[in-house]
């Protein structure tokens, strides 16, 4: 029995070196000790709630009163929740438009400030500065900015672009694109910074080689920068898509879901189920659904990312 023999020689070796063993054990005890606060926080405030949310989704769970098991009611009633179905369509539309515009603008900004030259640091700071403002504060800022007291109407009318004041949040499309404008203002610099880290990882020799081969600016961008930037762009897309699918602050604060409930995001419906209708079970079921979709999406995106490398 080679297996038994192996174990007994290992045992003999361990017995011959008791100091080693206790050292290893002491090391693992210390490691456990130092990581204990992390384990407690992750366990109590992340893993436990993660299990609980699944259990809640299987119960009739009101904010007051004791829960009763009702699986699968919270899930089977989702297709009847017209508000949620509408919010899925709206959130997907918002995600698609935002991601395309935001990525394009961030890429242009990153390319424009990637090279060191006098004053470029000031530009970077200016583009990023909105990112230091909280998202809720930014939404409130633009609530005033887009209002009748805001500066846009008079600027556009002075320039002769508009004849009369525009109701920036008044129609479904105006509200959507005004919100996207605010989101781009707030996050373009953030995405630019992500792309800059990727751009700066490209060795300058590669560019020099391209230049000595007589490559044009467009060719350099198309055949060198873009392929080498692919994984950074993928990272930016993952962050942007995930963030947009979970949109809340911008629609809760800036458009308040209006006009006429046309800008209600998925997370807003979850919030409403839980804290306006006090039906935590239903909110939990929608949350679990959202979690599953996002995990699947993340796995697919990571797969694609892995294949490209």
């Amino acid at each position, binding site marked *: 029995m080679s297996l038994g023999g192996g174990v007994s020689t290992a045992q003999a070796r361990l017995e011959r070196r008791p100091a080693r063993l206790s050292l290893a054990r002491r090391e693992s005890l210390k490691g*456990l000790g130092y990581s*204990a606060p992390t384990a407690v*926080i992750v366990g*109590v*405030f992340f893993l436990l*709630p993660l299990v*609980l949310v699944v259990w809640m989704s299987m119960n009739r769970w009101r904010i007051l009163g004791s829960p009763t098991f009702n699986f699968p009611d919270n899930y089977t009633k989702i297709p009847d929740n017209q508000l949620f179905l509408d919010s899925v369509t709206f959130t997907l539309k918002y995600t698609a438009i935002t991601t395309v515009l935001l990525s394009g603008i961030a890429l242009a900004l990153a390319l424009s400030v990637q090279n060191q030259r006098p004053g470029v640091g000031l530009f970077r700071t200016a583009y990023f500065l909105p990112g230091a403002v909280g998202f809720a504060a930014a939404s409130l800022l633009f609530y*005033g900015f887009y209002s009748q007291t805001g500066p846009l109407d008079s600027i556009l009318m002075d320039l002769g672009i508009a004849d009369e004041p525009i109701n920036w949040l008044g129609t479904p499309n105006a509200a959507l694109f005004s919100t996207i404008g605010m989101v781009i203002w707030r996050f373009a610099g953030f995405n630019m910074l992500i792309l800059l880290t990727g751009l700066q990882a490209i060795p300058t020799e590669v560019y020099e080689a391209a230049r000595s081969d007589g490559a044009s600016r467009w060719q350099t961008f198309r055949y060198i920068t873009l392929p080498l930037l692919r994984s950074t762009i993928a990272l930016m897309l993952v962050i942007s898509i995930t963030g947009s699918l979970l949109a809340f602050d911008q629609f809760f604060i800036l458009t308040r879901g209006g006009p006429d409930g046309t800008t209600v995001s998925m997370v807003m419906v979850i*919030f409403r189920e839980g804290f306006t209708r006090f039906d935590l079970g239903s909110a939990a079921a929608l949350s679990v659904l959202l979690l599953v979709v996002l995990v699947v999406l993340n796995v697919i995106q990571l797969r694609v990312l892995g294949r490209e490398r």
Partner: protein
Amino acid sequence: MKLGYYTTGAALSILFLFPLLWGGYESFRGQPGSGQESGFGFGNYTRMADYGEGIATYLINTAAVSAMTVVGTLLVSALGGYAFARFRFPGKEALFLATLAILMVPYATILIPLYVVLGHLGLQNSLVGLSLVMIMFQLPFAIFMMRNSFEAVPRELEEAALVDGCTTFSALRRILLRAVRPGLITVGLFAFLASWNDFFAPLILLSDGDKFTLPVAVVAMRERSFGAIDYGALEAGVMVMALPCVILFLVLQRHYVRGFTAGALRG
């Protein structure tokens, strides 16, 4: 060519700074019926300061949550990062993966059960409970950052101290913490910006007006204004929220950018 570059850059910079500058201007500008009847002054700020429990309460609440979150995140991630970088222990990989998995789970999905969990812990409607939740949301970035920071420190630095009879804890406290200071500043800055500004977690976890943080309080102020909305007071509230972050970012910009470089290594 050069002129074109700088003109475009300057125009874009103005475009990005304009809404903030406008907000600042509007917060001082007078409007009939507002706190500042005419001219320019602090009238909108005093009007806003009188709202609800008074701005002082909300400022103290927000500062308390931010302080607890920053200190807690630094403490947990410095110890945890040290453990992940220097020790072998059972469950190490699993704990690291579980911590990173926090990034994958939607905010709402975890906050709904947390509302129930905090209730059982006697931490409902509590600033301490809110801070513990914020620390949890900071951990993926903080642990990742601190583990990398400790790994970048040569082992010889602490081995000399350990040979001299220091315990691992005093080696950490006296020598290593100084070596990973830049990482700690980055982690602290991210924790501050997140906790000062967060809206969704306090909206769900806090129920009493006297516990509200600034973002929730200012949004509530707008919701409760009947008839004409007082935009001057609103923008004054926005400025109180935004200014500390803008100043802190300008001072610690270098440390902020390092957070991105560290994050991008993962991607």
